[in-house]
Each structure stands twice: as structure tokens, then as C-alpha cells.
């Protein structure tokens, strides 16, 4: 494993000391340049405006830490691990994991373990309302990630406006339920259907575009939907949003106090947690449905055509595959699950406004898919846990939350450039199922 020619570099200690100090000075200078404005200057609000205070002592400490740390690394750590810069710690770890096949075996157990954990979570003692709320949030993003994975991961079409379908689903349910009094269970398929229709409407004009161009148009589409929702006051109530959206019922039993409620029917004491637990299992079921359908589709000709499209569109056409129709089905299927998730969001919140459907949501879902590994179902789960759950965990870091969070994402991408689960599982095999390394799998160019 450690194939690096170490002795040659460790041979000249005097020279390496000088080089190390120069290197550390450069690092310290960079640290100074960065720390001076960020750490050194601090705004304080006074009566009548903002004022600046300086903290040069803190800057000096930061620069000293960088200098000493860099020097220590150069002298003590890196010589033993040369060539340090080429063979990073992450890459070595990765290679070791790949060689032992440990990661693969762990993966086989991971999915059932996560599933059991997800089903058992509400019954565990630490599952208070806060934990369940986070669970619901994570599952919503897992479902969105799985939906987008069909479009981006399987068909290789970069969609930056996925939140549009989420919005269509949410508003479909909210409007149908508040105006026509339709129940959640009737609205759910309708919302999915309407979102899929929007997927087709978006799909028709843009599918001749490829790669970056497709990404820009989908981005614009996402914004158009949001701006229409914001300005079509008569229908959507504009920025005020839609409130008092009906909650879902348990086979006709409402989760409320009194006669005919869920608690009264089963003869148990009323608790506001019943609804939360119900919502938790509802989104779990919806997410698992998404996963089940996606896995099923992958083994069907349409799923294989999606993946073939990602690999080579021209070859697909030469084999008689209607690439336009294939792309449209991918768009519509992804959009449908986005619509389901949207109508769940509306019923959980009870209130929706265009504020909830900003571009950041699209970016977050896309980040989950990319971080998890394009096309990987379990990767999306891990990434959603890390991104959404992790974001909650970092709450104690307060203002550094975004910083820590961003740093974590950068680290993951450096460690695994093709996502956490980068390998692809074949959809069919003759003798033995071998997973395919990321280096062979195409990323799709739209």
C-alpha cells in the first residue's frame, strides 16, 4: 500500500527544516490574510448604528496556531507518509477500504439496519417530539432525494428546479383540500399526477437541450413556478400563503380531542404525539414506496433505458430507443414523487407559502443526491442523514453552523469525489452480481 519512496525525502533534515519553516511562513501569511478581516474585525451594534472593534490578539493566536501546526506537520507527520500531497490520508483510507471489501459487506447490512431503525424509532424511549420532527424532515428529504435520483442519477439529466414539482404537489393538495374539501388520500395521487404533468410540460421544450443548458432552463422553471405562486394572488393568496390546510386522517379518524377522534376510537388517552407518529409513518411509507418503485423500474426496460441514456444517448438511438419519450418518463416519474412529497409537506405544515420553495431547496436536494453518489439509493439515505440530521446536530455551534456544515461537505467530496456510494449495482446478472466502480459509470450530460 505505502508505495511511496520515503527514504529519499527524509535524507536531508537540515534542508527540510528550512523548507518547512518557509512553508509554514507562507501558510501563516495566508492565515493572516484570511483571519485579519474575518476574526480581526468585529461589528458591534451600538445605539445609532454599527461600530467596529478589533481583535488583533485573536488574529495573532490564529496565525501562530497555523504556523506551528503547519511546521509540526511538515517535520513530524508528513516525512513518514511521503509522498504526502499525492497520497492523501483520505485516499489511502479509501484504497484500504476498497481492498478489504469491508465497505461492501457493511453496505449489505446497512440498508436493513437503517430500515429497522426507521421503523422502530417512534417506539424508542428517546423519541420525543423533537426527534420525530427531525425524523420526518430527514425522511422528506430522503424521499425528495430518491425522486430526484431518478432524473439526475439514473437518466443523467441535471435538474436544478426540482423544488418546482414539490411546490406543485404542495399547492395542489392545499388548493384541492381547502376549496373542494377533498381528503388527503384523494389529493395525494392527484398531486402526484399534476406534478407529473408539469414534468411533461417542462420536459417537452427543454429535452432537446443538453448538460449545462438543461440545468439553466430547469433552474429558471423552478423560479417561474415560485414567482407565479407569489403573484397569482387570486388563486394562491400570494406571499400570505395558504393556511388551515386539513390534516390527514387515519382511515377517516381525525387526530383530535373528543368524540370520533383517533384517541377516543381506540380508547386511549389523547396525545398530540399521535399525529406526529402517524405523520412519521406516513412519510416513511411514502419514501419506501418511492424506493420500491425506483428499484423496480431499474430492473425494467424503461429503467435500463434511463441508465443507457446516461451512458450514451447516440447509442440508444441507434438501438431504436425513443430518447425523447425516455427522458420524459424520467422527468415525469421524478416529478410525481416530488409532488407526493409536496402534498405531504403541505399536510404536515398546515400552512404553505412560496417562501418554502426557494432555489436553496432544489440545491439541497441535489446536494443530497450528488453527495450520496449518483444513482445510489442507500447513498441518498446516508447523505440526507448527514446533511439534514447533521445540520440539526450542529445547532450548538450557533453562528459557525454553516461553516462546519460547509466544511463537512467539502471533506466528503474530497474523500469521495463521486459521492459516498459511488459504485453501481447491475440490474441483472447471469452468474454473479459484481458492483461496478464509479470510474466506468457515466455521469450523463443531459
Amino acid at each position, binding site marked *: 500500500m505505502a508505495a511511496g519512496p520515503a527514504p529519499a525525502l527524509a535524507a536531508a533534515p537540515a534542508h527540510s527544516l528550512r523548507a518547512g519553516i518557509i512553508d509554514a511562513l507562507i501558510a501563516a501569511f495566508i492565515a493572516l490574510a484570511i483571519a485579519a478581516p474575518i476574526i480581526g474585525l468585529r461589528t458591534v451594534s451600538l445605539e445609532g448604528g454599527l461600530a467596529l472593534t478589533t481583535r488583533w490578539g485573536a488574529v495573532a493566536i490564529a496565525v501562530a496556531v497555523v504556523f506551528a501546526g503547519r511546521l509540526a506537520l511538515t517535520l513530524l507527520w508528513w516525512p513518514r507518509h511521503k509522498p504526502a500531497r499525492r497520497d492523501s490520508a483520505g485516499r489511502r483510507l479509501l484504497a484500504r477500504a476498497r481492498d478489504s471489501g469491508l465497505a461492501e459487506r457493511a453496505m449489505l447490512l446497512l440498508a436493513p439496519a437503517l430500515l429497522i431503525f426507521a421503523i422502530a424509532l417512534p417506539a424508542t424511549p428517546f423519541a420525543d417530539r423533537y426527534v420525530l420532527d427531525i425524523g420526518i424532515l430527514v425522511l422528506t428529504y430522503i424521499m425528495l432525494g430518491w425522486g430526484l435520483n431518478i432524473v439526475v442519477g439514473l437518466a443523467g439529466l441535471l435538474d436544478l428546479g426540482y423544488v418546482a414539482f414539490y411546490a406543485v404537489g404542495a399547492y395542489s393538495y392545499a388548493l384541492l383540500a381547502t376549496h373542494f374539501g377533498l381528503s388527503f388520500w384523494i389529493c395525494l395521487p392527484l398531486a402526484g399526477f399534476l406534478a407529473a404533468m408539469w414534468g411533461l410540460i417542462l420536459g417537452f421544450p427543454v429535452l432537446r437541450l443538453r448538460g449545462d443548458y438543461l440545468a439553466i432552463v430547469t433552474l429558471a422553471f423552478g423560479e417561474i413556478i415560485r414567482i407565479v405562486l407569489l403573484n397569482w394572488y387570486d388563486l394562491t393568496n400570494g406571499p400570505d400563503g395558504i393556511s388551515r390546510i386539513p390534516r390527514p386522517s387515519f382511515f377517516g379518524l381525525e387526530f383530535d380531542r373528543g368524540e370520533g377522534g383517533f384517541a377516543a376510537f381506540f380508547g386511549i388517552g389523547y396525545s398530540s404525539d399521535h399525529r406526529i407518529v402517524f405523520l412519521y409513518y406516513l412519510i416513511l411509507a411514502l419514501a419506501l414506496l418511492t424506493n420500491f418503485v425506483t428499484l423496480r423500474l431499474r430492473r*425494467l*426496460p424503461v429503467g435500463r433505458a434511463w441508465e443507457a441514456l446516461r*451512458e450514451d444517448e447516440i447509442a440508444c*438511438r441507434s438501438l431504436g430507443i425513443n430518447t425523447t419519450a425516455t427522458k420524459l418518463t424520467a422527468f415525469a416519474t421524478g416529478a410525481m414523487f416530488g409532488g407526493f412529497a409536496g402534498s405531504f409537506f403541505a399536510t404536515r405544515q398546515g400552512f404553505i407559502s412560496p417562501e418554502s420553495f426557494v432555489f436553496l431547496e432544489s440545491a439541497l436536494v441535489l446536494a443530497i443526491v450528488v453527495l450520496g453518489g449518483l444513482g445510489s439509493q442507500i447513498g441518498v439515505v446516508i447523505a440526507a442523514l448527514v446533511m439534514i440530521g447533521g445540520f440539526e446536530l450542529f445547532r450548538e455551534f450557533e453562528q459557525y453552523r454553516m461553516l462546519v456544515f460547509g466544511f463537512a461537505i467539502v471533506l466528503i467530496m474530497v474523500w469521495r469525489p463521486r459521492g459516498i456510494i459511488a459504485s453501481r449495482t*447491475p440490474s*441483472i446478472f*447471469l452468474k454473479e452480481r459484481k458492483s461496478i466502480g464509479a470510474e466506468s459509470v457515466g455521469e450523463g450530460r443531459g
Partner: protein
Amino acid sequence: MSARAQAATAARSEPAALAADPILTVEHLTMRFGGLLAIDDLSFSAERGQITAVIGPNGAGKTTVFNCLTGFYKPTEGMITMRHADGASFLLERMDDFRIARSARVARTFQNIRLFPGMTVLENLLVAQHNTLMRASGYTLAGIFGLAVYRKAERKAVERARYWLDKTGLLERADDPASDLPYGAQRRLEIIRAMCSQPLLLCLDEPAAGLNPAESDELNRLLRDIRDHHDTSLLLIEHDMSVVMGISDFIVVLDYGEKISSGSPHFVRNDPKVIAAYLGIDDEDAGTGGAP
């Protein structure tokens, strides 16, 4: 075969007109890219159940002809007719590329191999049977509920894939990603992938490019086998003379987008115009043969 070859020798300039049962007829095909005339008024036909080769020096317009036949280019002028044995005929210049593959049943391979690199060999062969499987899966609806109809169709598709893998010695590699195969095997895989779509006409764009002599022989055996034992006629572009002369029943020679000769391998090999333009005989030899 010999009678047709003699006819070709006698007619010299227009032997294609004598084709008895053409599967493909190209008439007055012209392709212009801006000011560049890539193909100029080309007419030829390919006989059913035979191997027809299109040869010519670099830049003669061979691949452009293929791209017109398979719908990747829309020709500026001309008519391309595909005739099935049951009498159905298709005007290829008016059809979308995927419809040419699906309805007219013309399959093709590419000069620079185009596989699905991240999918296994077997998956590559199943994607080629997309339209058959799509129908069997009730356009996904029957498939998603796992109906027996679809499972049976998929088993049949795997059987067909296994047949071709066995024939080309790729059975052991069926579960490996296509990109892991050596170059020669990738070429073979691309050909059998096209065959899995059950074409009536298979267009091969330089199938022997980059193959060593042993692989080239193996390719010849495969192509002959396809011609003799399957309901598929072949049209191939080739640089490698050993392949062309060894297996072709009929050859069309292009130079600067024009047909300069056509006929049996024997006829073409001895045509002075072809020798001058392509086969690289010394200048004075070509001169004595009547240079163009």
C-alpha cells in the same frame, strides 16, 4: 454468386441495377455541409442476404453515407429505400433515427465504439432488446407488478443474449462492465448488441479497425455466420482490405463523395480507377491502367 459477378464484370459501370432482390436501394443520395459536398449523387443497392461493402480512402464520405442511412443526418437530396422480405418498404430519409432502428430494422455500429461503459455486458445486450421488452412489460405497467408475461419475455431476452455471448466467446464476461473488456471484445460486443435488436440490415462502420489479424479472422467468421444463418444482410464500411476482399459479396468504391466503381471483389480489385484512387499501386501502374 458467380453469375452475378460475371454480370457485374460485363456491365462495369452500373452493375447495381442488376440486383435481383435489393434490401436497400440508395438513389441519387447527396449530402452537403455548407459549401462542402460530402456525397455527390450516389446510387447503389445492397442485395438481401449478402455482405455489401462500401470502401474508399479517408474522407471519401463513407461514414456520411452511413449516417444518412441510419437517420443521424438528413440527406440534402436523394431517396433511401429499405425493403423487407414481406414487401413492406420504408423511406429512410424521412424517418427519425430511432424509428429506422425500430420499424425499418436497420441496426448500426460506430467507428469509435459506443457501448454503455458503466453497464454490464449482459445489460448492454438487454438494452438492445428495449422495444421487445417494453411491449412485453406492457409499457412498464405490467412489469412494475411483476407479471409473469414480462418475466418470461425477460428470460427469453437473456437467452438471446446468452446465445450471442456464447458465439463470440464473451459468456464468461457477461457480468463485467463493458468498459473492462479488451478492445477486440468491445468491438464484438457492439456487433452482437446490434444483432440483439434483431435487425434485417446491419450496418458496420469499420468493424475491423484496430483488430489484430487473429481477431480480424474471428470477426470474418462472425460476419459470415450472421449472413449465412440469420435473417440479416450486412453493409459494412471498411479500410482493412483483407476483411473486405475476404467476405464481401459486392463492393461499392467511393472517392470524394462519388461512386467510382462497384462490383464483385474480383472486379473492383482489378478496376484501374480503384487502384489509382485507393489500393495504392505504384503511380506508373495506375497510369498504364488508364488514370482518371
